[in-house]
């Protein structure tokens, strides 16, 4: 469990890092918190020739208010900073509620927002939350800069829209609209494990109590964050009764996800869990929206 030899660079600015990526491209990997990359290197599953370590690029660690009432979060912001940020608690309560579900405190001290979404583990929380918030991701390379919608960023299993010479510099998360309730829940084997299934929900009610808009995003049941569009279609325009929520959750778990089976959970069990959790988060989101 020793990685093969690699070259190591520790740039201190984004410009420097981008230059290194431009030079080494396919052969290079960015090192952020290292909580996913280092294990895969020790198992020799990833064998990058060059590591570009962002840990000294302090300009990438920030949480800033955005004009739309949401937040801008720098790629090198540690999970623990998001978890303990008052700004996050005030403006993005769904994100705040979700942070403690990520791994253990030791890992949250190191792992970063940018690392998590770039790694794009389909069972990870931050990709699902970023999609739920309809976030945008800011990518840069020496060739230029672009913003990508979260929906377009996650393209498959551990695969994103990032080009080899690009890096994530920040993430923009708009706030949830008024009269919106939200909830997150997941089921994992042990406290701190990647979840077997997780679900985030946000439900916006109109003044009459009918669903104006809803978002339902599943993790761990497909090759990327999976959107429960069938459920959303069922809910929209309706006053969400318990029966309707149950039906929406069940339908989404049948039609909107594509779970795989492994030693911890069969595909059938993951589907079952997805329905149970979707029902629970939708119920809580509606309760909160009604308050």
């Amino acid at each position: 469990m020793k990685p093969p030899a690699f070259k190591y660079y520790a740039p201190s600015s984004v410009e420097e890092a981008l230059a290194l990526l431009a030079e080494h491209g396919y052969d290079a990997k960015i090192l952020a918190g290292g909580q996913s990359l280092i294990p895969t290197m020790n198992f020799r599953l990833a064998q990058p020739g060059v590591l570009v370590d962002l840990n000294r690029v302090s300009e990438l660690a920030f949480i800033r208010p955005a004009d739309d009432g949401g937040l801008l979060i720098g790629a090198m912001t540690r999970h623990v900073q998001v978890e303990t940020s008052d700004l996050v608690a005030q403006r993005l309560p769904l994100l705040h509620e979700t942070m403690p579900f990520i791994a253990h405190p030791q890992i949250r001290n190191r792992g970063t927002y940018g690392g998590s979404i770039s790694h794009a583990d389909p069972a990870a929380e931050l990709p699902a939350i970023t999609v739920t918030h309809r976030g945008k991701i800011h990518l840069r390379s020496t060739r230029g800069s672009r913003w990508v919608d979260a929906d377009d960023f996650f393209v498959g299993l551990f695969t994103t829209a990032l080009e080899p010479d690009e890096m994530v510099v920040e993430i923009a998360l708009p706030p949830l609209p008024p009269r919106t309730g939200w909830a997150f829940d997941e089921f994992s084997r042990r406290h701190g494990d990647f979840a077997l299934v997780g679900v985030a929900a946000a439900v916006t009610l109109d003044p009459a109590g009918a669903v104006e808009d809803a978002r339902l995003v599943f993790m761990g049941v497909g090759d990327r964050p999976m959107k429960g569009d069938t459920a959303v279609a069922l809910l929209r325009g309706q006053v969400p009764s318990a029966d309707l929520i149950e039906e929406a959750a069940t339908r989404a778990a049948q039609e909107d996800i594509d779970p795989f089976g492994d030693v911890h959970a069969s595909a059938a069990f993951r589907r079952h869990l997805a329905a149970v959790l979707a029902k629970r988060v939708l119920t809580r989101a509606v309760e909160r929206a009604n308050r």
Partner: protein
Amino acid sequence: MAGRYFGQPIRRNEDPVLLTGQALFTDDVQLPGMVHVAFLRSDYAHARIRSIDVSRALDRPGVIGVYTAEDLGDYWQPGPLLVPPPPVEGIIFHQRTQVPLAKGKVRHVGEPVVMVVAESRYIAEDALDDIFVDYEPLEAVVDVEKALEPDAPLVHEDLGTNLAARVVQRKGDYEAARAKADVIIQRRFYYDHGLAAAMENRGIVAHWDKKMQYLTVWDTTQAPVVIRNGLAKMLGLSESQVRVIAPFIGGAFGPKIMMFYPEEVLIPWLSMKLNRPVKWIEDRRENFVATTQERYQVHYAEIALTKEGRILGVKDRFYHDTGAYDPYGLTVPINSQCTLLGPYDIPNYHSEMNVVFTNKTIVTPYRGAGRQHGVFVMERLLDLAAKELGIDRTEIRRRNFIPPDKFPYNNEIIYQDFAPLVYDSGNYEPALDLAMKLIDYEKFIKEEQPRLRAEGKHVGLGIVAYVEGTGIGPYEGARVQVESTGKVNVATGVGTQGQSHFTSFAQIVAEQLDVDVRNIRIVTGDTAEFHWGTGTFASRGAVVAGNAIHAAAKKVREKVLQKASEEFGVPVEELELRGGYVHTKDGRSISLADLAVKANPLRGAVKPGTEPGLEATMYFGPERGVTANGVHAMIVEVDPELMDVKIKKYVVVHDCGKVINPLVVEGQIHGGVAQGIGNSFYEEIVYNEDGQMLTASFMDYLIPTAMEIPPIEVGHVETPSPWNELGTKGTGEAGAIPTAAAFVQAVEDALADYGIEILEAPLSPNRLFEILKEAQAKKGT
């Protein structure tokens, strides 16, 4: 004899060095010129080796040598059979032991095939990628029952069968008992025990000093003396030329005694060959496939009872997965066969054990060592019988307990030490009563559970009893010496891997010599300090080494008093040993340090028939083991939607005879329960049909963390063993043995309205999901 030291909750002597990172572990050994080894291990469970090409690895800069089985010459030998088969009539036993490097064929994933030595571990691992082994894959033997079908592929072709052993043991006449029974319950049970996953993996550093002609080996072994003797013989050295040190070890739990591991045989050989210090540290990936583990058994068991719930007899036929080789003989399945009988008075027993070779990692004891499997079967049979007969589950156990006046109790079958399975002593009802009190049994059943059920909660209780055979022979020894510094030096041959020996052994000595335990230095696991011994296993340290230390300390006490009596001219009976001094009634006193100086004079001769110093060496060799017992109880809450189980309360009542240090006993129990909880709901080794382990990392092999372990309440009952002077019984494995049996009972109880029967362990949310679905499907039809 609870005294000033013995029986007291004294804090651990070893903690200051451990907690401040000052303790020496094998990987801390750094020597000038040291080189590093990595092993190429088989990726196949079963394959023929057509050829091996190491030429590219040899060309890599920094590589010093590359070795295959062929390169070992006559040094290549199958390992020894550590435990011969027991003397049971009609026994079948086939010995097939592991080899240093695979030759011709690989028999499990992880079996070492090529050894690379290089200037660093990094280079050695790079070189593994340079080696090409041409394998011809063979069908793997994975399932123990299919393995015995006529057309099954063979792990060892020359045997013509995958049956490693068959042992039938009988007590009384089961068939006659069955004919008289009111109720007979028959089921198939599946019990899978996992791997020890000690915090520290295995490791070896060997240093051959050519000029001294002396080999020093640091080894994470539980049995340094045995390793020293074996290595000397294999390498053609005198035992006095080999020193094996088992330094601090980060947990062992059984698998570190499987001497001789291939690496243990090869690293010292390589050091002599290269004339350089050589280090190999097992990494976690290797540990999953190359360190021995426990696994599953399938039992076809039945119990015959009267309608009052009295057991008339038990019959069992079981299949035990021993892996690719069987160097540890039948220890694990014999423990299952014997421990199944538990604390119960069972007049008739018929048990057929079938041990099966498979293309998997070798099975040897891991904390519990097969006892879990037996306890699970027996406790589940009793649960089913209680249900069938409408008797409370605690009552059916109570009715069948061996009464206190029936000890010593002879089970009339042979145990793992080849002695008849005789329980020395026991008093089982008080343990059950105390456990019921601590878990508040009556109140839970009559008030709590109905109330919570009415609220829609699924809560259940599990309560089970067990025995633990401990403290088997052959022997251990110890040397106790009072130094002229006033400190006391104690050496024994057993190794230590976290059992608190530095404290509990010191307490035994302190009780005799009345010195502060912090002034007693215990040396374990260094063959240069003590020549004789067997090892740390079978919960025997406190019993066997403990009683040897006790005997030696008593002898030293006699010498101390004798010497003081000569000094003062006062008879021994009129002297008092207190606080490191010997006192006379008229107020004179002398310290142990001064007495030690006087016992080793620079002038004047040692009198004939006496020895210098205040020192004694004594041995303790029990004829047979002693039997501890206990009761575990827990309360769980199940979420039948998520299939999650939370343990709300856990109670252990334990009787290990005389307690040397309650903190240590509780620590042993807590650790054991944690492993038991892992074995109930989290840990599971999964092999696919090709013999590949699908759970070979901590991502997939789920060790419970502090978050999954509830607070554990421990109650003590003390029934001293009459078979040793200290009255102690072992306690190392107690926490781990009955946990899954209690867990499954509790889950079944919580889900009573689903009408399920759980006949297997471990469970998992996924498995519960399937079990509930099967039950629903049955209800539907």
